[in-house]
């Protein structure tokens, strides 16, 4: 019982951040329909924010696709882990894949028995899915009504969210080094290369720092 309750409260709390995505997408000149499509089909916060951010910074569709897809790649790694727990085939596997994200995987693997792990995965996954989509629509319509989004701090919502996502993970020295190098690298080259390149090119830093 409490597994379901915990899962759904994570769904509500995380889903509410969909307001920020809807608002940021519209502030960055995406349509309400595009914001909602991304939340429904792409359904991966970091990929959604990055796609919108790269294009609004003048990046090409290709660099937005590459960046968004790289950021979505960790869901594939979660999928590997969740497949061992869920052991699904066919339609149910296809459905589970769509809701395989940070939160559904995180809450699931935090459980101590297999039944709770399955319950937590589905309730968190669909909880986030439902609320994330609902709040994306609300945020997108709200931002369209606001006008100058900088006057409401919306231009800093997305980097602040990324800081909050990164911060707890930077206790590990290797991750901290990679993060600082990527930050400095991106800022150093931004004036000399096309938009989007400063972001994608940091994959090389990941490879170098992670090699040994």
């Amino acid at each position: 019982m409490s597994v379901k309750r915990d899962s759904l409260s994570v769904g509500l709390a995380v889903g509410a951040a969909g307001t920020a995505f809807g608002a940021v997408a519209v502030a960055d000149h995406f349509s309400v329909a595009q914001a909602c499509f991304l939340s429904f089909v792409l359904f991966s916060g970091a990929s959604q924010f990055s796609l919108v951010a790269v294009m609004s910074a003048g990046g090409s569709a290709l660099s937005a696709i590459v960046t968004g897809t790289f950021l979505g790649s960790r869901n594939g790694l979660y999928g590997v882990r969740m497949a061992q727990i869920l052991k699904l085939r066919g339609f149910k596997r296809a459905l589970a894949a769509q809701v395989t994200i940070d939160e559904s995987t995180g809450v699931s693997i935090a459980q101590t028995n297999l039944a709770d792990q399955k319950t937590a995965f589905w309730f968190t996954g669909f909880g986030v899915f439902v609320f994330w989509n609902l709040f994306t629509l609300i945020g997108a319509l709200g931002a369209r009504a606001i006008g100058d989004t900088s006057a409401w701090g919306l231009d800093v919502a997305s980097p602040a969210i990324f800081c909050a996502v990164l911060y707890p993970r930077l206790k590990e020295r290797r991750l901290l080094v990679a993060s600082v190098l990527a930050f400095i690298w991106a800022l150093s080259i931004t004036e000399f290369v096309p938009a989007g390149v400063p972001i994608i090119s940091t994959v090389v830093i990941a490879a170098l720092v992670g090699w040994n």
Partner: protein
Amino acid sequence: MSSQWIAVIVTSVLCYALKYIGHAIPEIWLAHPRVQRITNLIPIVLLSALVAMQALTTKTKFVLDHRLAGIAVALIALKAKLPFPAVVIGAMATSAIVYRLKI
């Protein structure tokens, strides 16, 4: 079709494909420690670079403005272990106030 729609649809399809492949491939393929270290680092470096671009550049040019104040407050809030919504709302409010004061 606009380049925005192309990016939206293609990224959506590719990201779903990655999620599905994860569920379908044998785990042994990703077991190598080097592969795990690098795949673990990829989201970190991408997000770090994104923060730099979103907070400190405008149309690829380096810019210091109201957004830096917002990010500074976010970092202070994170250091103080405030909950996620307080971090984001604190950053937004600070950035908005600095932006409006300058006008």
